[in-house]
Every structure is written in C-alpha cells, then in structure tokens.
C-alpha cells in the first residue's frame, strides 16, 4: 500500500539519481526553486506547465515522475480536501478546456459532482485528430502519469471510480507508454482499490479510437466507447449529467488533465498568475509550416502571435515575408500578417474569426494561396464528416466543390456569395462542432483575403502562384532570343524573332513547362 511517507521516500531516493543523469546529458538546468527546465533559445520564452516533465523524466519510470513531485497532489487532495473543496480550487483556477472549446473545467466538474448517480465516469480525450497536431501525443509519450494523476483527482472530485482513456490507435507508442504507466500506478497502489489506503478507488482503462476525427467530439467518443458507430449525439442532456451509458461523465482533454496535478501542488493563485485574466495558464501549440524552428511550444496565454513565430520559432523560413497564421486546425481560421500582434487567448482569437482549437499553428508565407488553404481544410472536413446531419454532410461537400472549381480556374461570379450563404447555414444548423466550425477556414480567408478569391474568379489568376491550373507561363525581358523554347514547345505557341524577346500565347499554352526547362537564361517564369 502506498502512503505519503513512502511517496516521500521514493522521491528522496530518485531525485538525486535523476539529477545526475540530467547533468550528464546537459540539456537541462536546475532553477533556484528546484524546478528543472530545458536549456536553449527555443525554450527561453516558453513556460512549460503541461509539458513540465516532457523530455526531462523517463516516461517509463513512475519513480522519475514521483521524484518531481508526482502523485503528491493526489495525496494532498485525498488527505486534506473534501471533493467540494477540490472543485472549488478548480473553479478558482479557472482552468479552461484545452481540447478546443475552452469550457471552464471546474464548472464542468461541479455539474457532475452535484448530480446524484450510482456510477460516474471520467474520460480522457486523447483522440487528437487534427492534421499536424501532436501536443497530446507528446504528453502521453513523455509524461503519462500527469494525465493519470489528473484523472484520479477528477474522479475523487466528482465521485467517479472508473476512468477511460480514449486514445488513437495510430499512436502505438502512446498506447504502450500508457499501458505501462497504468500498470506501475496500480502496482504502487496509486490507482485501483483504496488509493493511499483511503476508501477512494479509481481504475483506468484504455480504449482505442478507430481513427475518425469526429470521434474526438465528446458524445461521438462516448458512442464509440459504448461500441456504437461514432456519431455525435443530439444535445438533450449534458454529458456531465447523462454521458457514457447514461451516467454522469466528465470528459477532459489530455493537456487539460496534465495541468490538473500542478494546480493542486501550487495553488489556484499561482495558476492564475500565469496567462491572462480570462484565459489563465499556458497553451501548447504545434508550430509548423514556413517557420524556421518548428516544434511544440508552450507559452503563457496572452503572448502575441508575433512573439511565438519570431522570438521562439525564429521567424519565417527562407526569410520570406509572413502572410498569415492558421490557428485551430480544420475548424480554425487564417489570421493575416497585420494582426500578428493579437494576443493568443480564447477571446482574442475568436474576435478575429479564428479559434484556439487544440493548438495547431501553421505559418504561411507569400507562396501560400489562401483559397487553396481553405480548400485543403475543407477537403479534410468533408472526408471526416460523420454523415449524420444534412447541413454538414451535404453542405460541406458543395462548398468544397465550389472551392475546387475556383482553384481550377472555373470560378464564376456569385461563387463567393454562394460560399458565404452555405457557410452561414452550415455553421448555424449543423448538429455538432465539426459542422458548426467547418466553414471557418473559408469565412476567415474570405474576410481577410477576399481579393485573392476575386483574382482567381475574375482574372483566373492565383496571386500566390500556387494553383497549378491558374499559372501563366511568361517570358521576361531576360530573354536573349535563342529560340530554344519556341522550337521545343509542343503546341508551338511561342513566337519571336532570333535575338528578340519571345512571347507566349497564353490562350494556346498547355502549361507543360518545357520552355521553362529548356531556357538557358531562366527567362521563363510562372505568374
């Protein structure tokens, strides 16, 4: 049986061993307050709370986790606090859900706490389906016990004795790491019957997701755990009252849960001192795209997009000009470069037509076509729509058809209006978050980059030079009149005299690119 005493012993025994290893590796430094952080410019401006142990501890070692105060929060709440007090602290901390919607975790817990039932459940949502996102995976693979401890605390708070982690089957390492962690915690008496010898029992089981994006939606996920087809439920009841198998259920995201233990170690005031008033704490982002240093970053809420991209990410790759930042994944929006000083928090992002989402952040430069980006994300949603409700199933398909038409150079007057009208209906009439946010990439690019749509539709031109069908081959005045291009053009659409600049008849050109290949002075360009 685990006791507080034993926990301290393990900590005292393991901490020096861990420090020794870290010193040898030389990637970390120990701060005055005893906390261990990663060294280097990339980490200087980061504040790592959810990722506090990642790349520091050995994820397969529960002792390492305990060495850095792991499971002390669980001990503390079990011995020193009533469930109601645990919930009060969570409400005070104002930790908001990191899975996308930003719903206050304490309020959610309280709903399930107040609702009488013979059985309650805690679910950890580890379905992470956004293309390009790997925040949750990194936590599960790097610090699994923080999630287990967070779930156990949630279980104690609301009165649940059973937890499920719904994890993507495409994350085999995360699954393996979690299995091992659960085993170790059970062995130590930190999960299972009578935790720390108290009468609180809590078990955790894994459930593997089938890889559908929509199964990350809370109620679809519950259907899936129940063995049914993963389709979102219509919201008649709150899941905190009637969720999994009709019982009160708390569903929280991996990153949300990883934040939980440290809030009980350091207190709600400490947590609220980080970030902004309405969005306290930090957020993990997967910074990708045309940025010099891509990777996971965890920053205090309220940091500006500019700071994240330039101070942490080192700026735009190839020193091109930044054009936009896409946040929030397939349900997010494109933020133009002139709004780079927007602070990153739930409200500010929503105000400019994007969302925090689960933390995708894609940097785009002038070679990225905004219409094509919208098409790319919509293509994803169309593939992932569960097919249950009409606006999403039928409407996103039609929007995608229009976007495909535009990027292929077949756009017509009225297409923008059709897109806007469809977007309005799909977002206001769809059943679940997938459909309700599916048109965000389109509406935000229409809001900030409307000219680009118009250029595609009216002038059959892609200003970013990215839509293949709209490229125009053009011979610049660098042409020396060697006639090579004209001789090689398969449709003979290049005219010009020897030693004079040649001209392409764009009407006839089939965009094969031969002229560009053969030109000895690089005079052929696309525009």
């Amino acid at each position: 049986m685990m006791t507080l005493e034993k926990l301290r012993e393990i900590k005292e025994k393991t901490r020096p061993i861990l420090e020794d290893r870290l010193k040898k590796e030389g990637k970390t430094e120990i701060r005055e307050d005893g906390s261990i952080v990663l060294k280097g410019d990339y980490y200087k401006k980061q504040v790592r709370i959810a990722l506090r142990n990642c790349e520091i501890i050995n994820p397969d070692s529960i002792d390492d986790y305990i060495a850095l105060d792991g499971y002390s929060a669980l001990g503390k709440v079990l011995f020193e606090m009533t469930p109601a007090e645990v919930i009060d602290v969570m409400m005070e901390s104002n930790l908001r859900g990191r899975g996308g919607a930003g719903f206050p975790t304490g309020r959610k817990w309280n709903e399930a706490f107040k609702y009488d039932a013979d059985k309650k459940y805690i679910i950890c949502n580890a379905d992470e389906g956004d293309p390009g996102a790997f925040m949750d995976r990194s936590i599960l693979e790097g610090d699994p016990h923080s999630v287990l401890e967070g779930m156990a605390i949630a279980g104690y708070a609301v009165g649940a004795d059973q937890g499920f982690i719904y994890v993507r089957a495409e994350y085999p390492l995360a699954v393996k790491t979690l299995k091992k962690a659960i085993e170790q915690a059970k062995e130590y008496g930190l999960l299972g019957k009578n935790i720390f010898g108290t009468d609180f029992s809590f078990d955790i089981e894994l459930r593997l997701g089938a890889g559908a994006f929509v199964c990350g939606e809370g109620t679809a996920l519950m259907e899936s755990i129940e063995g049914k087809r993963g389709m979102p439920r219509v919201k008649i009841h709150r899941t905190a009252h009637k969720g999994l198998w009709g019982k009160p259920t708390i569903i929280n995201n991996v990153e949300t849960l990883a934040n939980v233990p440290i809030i009980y170690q350091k207190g709600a005031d400490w947590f609220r001192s980080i970030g902004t008033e309405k969005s306290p704490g930090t957020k993990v982002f997967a910074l990708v795209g045309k940025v010099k240093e891509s990777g996971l970053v965890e920053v205090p809420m309220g940091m500006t997009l500019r700071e994240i991209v330039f101070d942490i990410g080192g700026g735009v790759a190839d020193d091109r000009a930044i054009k936009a930042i896409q946040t929030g994944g397939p349900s997010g929006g494109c933020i133009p470069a002139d709004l780079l000083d927007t602070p990153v928090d739930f409200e500010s992002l929503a105000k400019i037509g994007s969302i925090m989402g689960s933390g995708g952040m894609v940097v785009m430069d002038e070679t990225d076509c905004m219409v094509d980006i919208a098409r790319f994300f919509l293509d994803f949603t169309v593939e992932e729509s569960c097919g249950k409700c009409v606006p999403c199933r039928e409407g996103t398909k039609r929007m995608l058809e229009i976007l495909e038409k535009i990027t292929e150079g077949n756009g017509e007057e009225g297409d923008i209006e059709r897109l806007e009208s469809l977007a309005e209906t799909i977002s206001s009439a769809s059943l679940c978050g997938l459909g309700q946010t599916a048109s965000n990439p389109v509406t935000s690019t229409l809001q900030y980059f409307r000219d680009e749509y118009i250029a595609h539709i009216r002038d059959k031109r892609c200003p970013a030079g990215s839509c293949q069908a709209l490229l125009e081959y053009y011979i610049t005045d660098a042409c020396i009149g060697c006639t090579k291009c004209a001789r090689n053009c398969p449709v003979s659409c290049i005219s010009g005299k020897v030693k004079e600049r040649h001209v392409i008849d764009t009407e006839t050109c089939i965009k094969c690119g031969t002229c560009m290949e053969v030109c000895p002075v690089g005079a052929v360009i696309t525009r």
Partner: protein
Amino acid sequence: MKNVTLTIDGQKVTVPENYSIIQAAKELGIDIPALCYDPNLEVVGACRLCLVEIEGSRKLETSCSTKVREGMVVNTETEKVVKARKDILQLLLDSHPNDCLTCQKAGECLLQAYAYRYDVKFREHDGAMRPKLIDTSSPYILKDDSKCILCGKCVRTCSQVDDRQVLSFAGRGYDTRIVLDLDKTFETSKCVSCNRCVVVCPVGALVDKRLMGKTRIWDAEVKTVDCKVCAYGCEFEVLSKKGKKLAVRAKAPSNGRPLCLKGRLTTELMHLDNPDKPYRKIGNKFVESSWTKAISIADIIEKINKLENNEEK
C-alpha cells in the same frame, strides 16, 4: 408531471414539462417540418429541418430535441429559420433524383411536401449526386439509395425489435449509406420483411413493392384494419379504388407492436379479392410459395381436413 407554459408564434400553450417544442407546437396546430423525428423513436436531431428560434438564444435550436421551459418564447417561421430550412431542403434536392412523376411515394413524401411548402426546386448542377444503388432482391420492399435522405428512422425502428436489427449506417460523410447486415441485400440479409422500415421512411427510398403501379395514393381510399393473427394487434391499411380492394400495407407500428410478414399476408388474404402471389424466404432466396405455406397453416389445414373427413364418415 409538472406543466409549463410557453409561447409559440405568439400563442400561449401549457404542456407537461417533458414535452419537446415540436410536441408543444403540435398542440397548437403548428406543424414544424421534421424529417427525422418520430414520436415512437429515439430523437437524433439529424435532418435539422425542425430548427426554431428561441428568444434569448443566439443559436437556432432543433425543436425535436429541445425540451420546453417555463416562459420560453419560440418562433417557428422567422426569416433566419426559413432561410436555414430552404438551404437544407435545397441541399437535399441537389443530391436527389428528380423522379416525383413516377415515384410511388409521391403524394405522401415529406421531402416533396416540404419542398412545395418552402418553394424549393430541383435544379441542374454539375456536382456530385448519390449513386443509383437499388436493391430489387425482395418481392416486398424496394430500396433506392439515391432517394435516401439518411434520416435514420428505418435503422431505429428495425433495431427496436430485438432479433431483427438488420439495418445500420455505413460509410462516412457524403458517402454514408444505409445497409443491411454489413452490406447485404434483402434476400441475403436476415431481414424478415416486416416492413417497419418502409412505413417510417419519409421518402421513396424504401417502398412497398406490392403497391407499386397499383394506384397513386391520392386516388386511393385508405381504410385501417386490425391484424387478427396474434395478440399484438398490429394495424394495416387496405387501399381501394372505385370499390375494388387493391393492396394492403403496414401502418406505422406503435406501442411495441412488431409487425410481421405473416400478419401482412394473412391480412392480404382476408381483405383482397385478388392478392399477389406470396413469397417465402428459404435460405438466402425468395421463392414463390403457396398461401398455406406462406402463412404456415399447412398443418392446421391438414388437421381440419382430417376432422371434417371424419365427421362426414
């Protein structure tokens, strides 16, 4: 049960607190369009046609899934609501074959009725359409996927009877379909031809084959009769034209009444002058059958014959 009072389209109504808005509206004679709602089935909120505006809420809410609250003020035909409904109907029609002229469902089809009510038309376009997958394997039911609007009523009603549960959703997004037993046909699946699914289908995606070509529904006289075969007492409808009884069809089941093929065939036999040939499923095949076998009374008849023969002697 407590009652609550709310206002719908300016009229006050008092209903039990477990009512949904669509039920409360019905009490006032307000007909909110609904394609996936059925009072006998679980509420799923799939078609989104029943959206209404509730004062104090920015979002539109589906009236089939939203419970009434004291003092609630609901408007069912605002500009916003009507736009959403028109768009939803247009989206459905854009994927739907323009076949009302010969469709057996015409006249009773809800999609047709709502398209008329909201003045939404079929239109030409070069986008995707649902492929015309038709299951003709059954002598009793015709399934035309191109007309299916995926309301899921058939799936829900079939699954209410424990040993049936033949129908389910398959595929994702635009390619979602209703399938029998992981993509079999009526013939090869474990379907028992009870026609529960047919009676709830709001469109012509599932139709009763034994009615086809016999009459347009608006030309027929429809009379409800009770099945006399077993204690469930399911209801059937007898369709006649100019006094001639043409066909029998199942009526929507309720209160745990299962419907079954034997009941249907027996009712046909009892009410029709000239019923079509019966079919039985033997193994994975529908085969033409005699009436005595189809309604499995061969042994009873034998017994009767025996008894009567004895008497005559």
